[in-house]
């Protein structure tokens, strides 16, 4: 266990363009041990791209990402090894439709971490039970509600005992009445000290769970600080404008 408060994830000057479109224009961000950082910002502001860059699903153009001090964006780095130390939960769940809930959760443990079937299944069952899915182990994703699917996806990302969890808008594909159960699962992980970077549109949730809120605007982090400060007394005009728009839409 590293010293509490040590940086687990560090993003330094990261840029990323898709063709002509510059999505990230120099991101600096630190996520410390046991800390939850909420990443807020309009759709298309680059939240998903940043998370995908950190999990090495996209190559960064410039800058670097460090995981426990190691430069993971170095071209020589073992990308598979890095992904095994991180967990990513997708907006659209991306469960494997041909596998049961339990098989989804244990695939990484079995194939990436080399656990025996018995051990992986035991842990997988315990994880599903922990997220309120006891008894649903043998259901395929299309037999589960959106909220249940996303909880399976969270269990799947968590099963590899990641150093940090990356959550990409995990509630925005859900019907409103299913949002709560998924947030409850994230709250549970926060309670046990999981280090998390959470891209979210749920401001009240960000206020409650996050230690830090970072506002991403046009590919840059415009403002960062404790939730109370950023969400209630933002310094930057862009942040104020974004929050007032959310307020008008009844989302804040």
């Amino acid at each position, binding site marked *: 266990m590293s010293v509490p408060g040590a940086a687990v994830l560090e993003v330094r000057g990261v840029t990323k363009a898709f063709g002509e479109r510059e999505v990230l224009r120099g991101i600096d961000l630190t996520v410390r041990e046991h800390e939850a950082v909420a990443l807020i910002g309009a759709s298309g502001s680059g939240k998903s791209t940043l998370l*995908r860059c950190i*999990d090495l*699903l996209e190559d960064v153009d410039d800058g670097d990402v460090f995981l426990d001090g190691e430069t993971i964006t170095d071209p020589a780095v073992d990308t*598979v090894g890095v*992904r*095994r130390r*991180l*967990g*990513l939960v*997708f907006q*659209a769940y*991306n*469960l*494997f*439709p*041909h596998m049961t809930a339990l098989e989804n959760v244990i*695939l*990484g443990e079995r*194939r*990436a*971490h080399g656990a025996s079937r018995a051990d992986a299944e035991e842990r997988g069952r315990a994880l599903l039970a922990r997220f309120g899915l006891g008894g649903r182990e043998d259901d395929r994703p299309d037999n589960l509600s959106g909220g249940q699917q996303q909880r399976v996806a969270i269990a*799947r*990302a968590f*099963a*590899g005992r990641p150093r940090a969890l990356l959550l990409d808008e995990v509630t925005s594909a859900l019907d409103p009445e299913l949002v709560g159960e998924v947030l409850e699962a994230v709250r549970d992980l926060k309670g046990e000290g999981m280090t998390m970077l959470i891209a979210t549109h749920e401001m009240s949730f960000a206020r409650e769970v996050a230690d830090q809120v970072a506002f991403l605007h046009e590919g840059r982090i415009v403002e960062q600080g404790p939730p109370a400060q950023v969400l209630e007394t933002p310094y930057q005009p862009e942040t104020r404008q974004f929050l007032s728009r959310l307020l008008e839409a009844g989302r804040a």
Partner: protein
Amino acid sequence: MPSDRRLEREAAKRRRHRRGQAIAALSSVVVLGGLAALILTSPGWPTVRETFFDWEVFTDSFPDVARAFWLDVKIFIVAELAILVVGLVVALVRIAHSPAFFPLRLLAVVWVDLFRGIPTILLVFLIGFGVPALELDGVPSEPVILGAIALVLSYSAYVAEVYRAGIRSVHRSQRDAALAVGLTESQAMRHVILPQAVRRVAPPLLNDFVALQKDVALISILGPLEAFREAQIIESQLFNFTPLVAAALLYLAVTVPMARIVDRMGGPEGAVR
């Protein structure tokens, strides 16, 4: 107690259903009866009945043709298994993006273009007569094996493209999710992408196999005594085509059940109801 409104609706639904059945029955009688009348009243029908549908010739020749058909079945099963494997390998090589695979990838493209582009009957000829002419050691020279190899070459090219289409149809987010849980690219292919791809392309794959079952008859040009050739031999002895009809029925006996399986996999829309 259901309401009157509901009873009324159900009665109307039953009436519509009965009316539909009556129309289907009537139109079947008209169409099929008309066709039968057309054939049975044609001037040549008595001759055709004698030369194609002679019951005695049928019962005499059927056991021989059926015995020969067993060879078709054996060739079909072995070739089918080989095609599934070779087709998959060609498809995987073709989509592999490692630079080390470049020459193999080129070969896979050529393989598909070449063997899909040559008529199967020509391929059977070229392999069946060309390969033995090379007089290479250790290369099979039995016509049955060479014919089966030609079928495998031809069909694996089709099947490789079917697999490839299936693999490409699996959304990229599945690969991302597999990599995110820590799998390597090849593990992602094996555990996540291929199982979904194969399920999706099972109907078109089976469809190709219905075609293969018939094309086994092409091997007859190399000489092996399979059903079509056996039937031809009897036909030329008796000057009667009935053995060929017997062979046709045998092919149908395996292709029709297969076709129904394909229908069922395609969902209820494809099935005859």
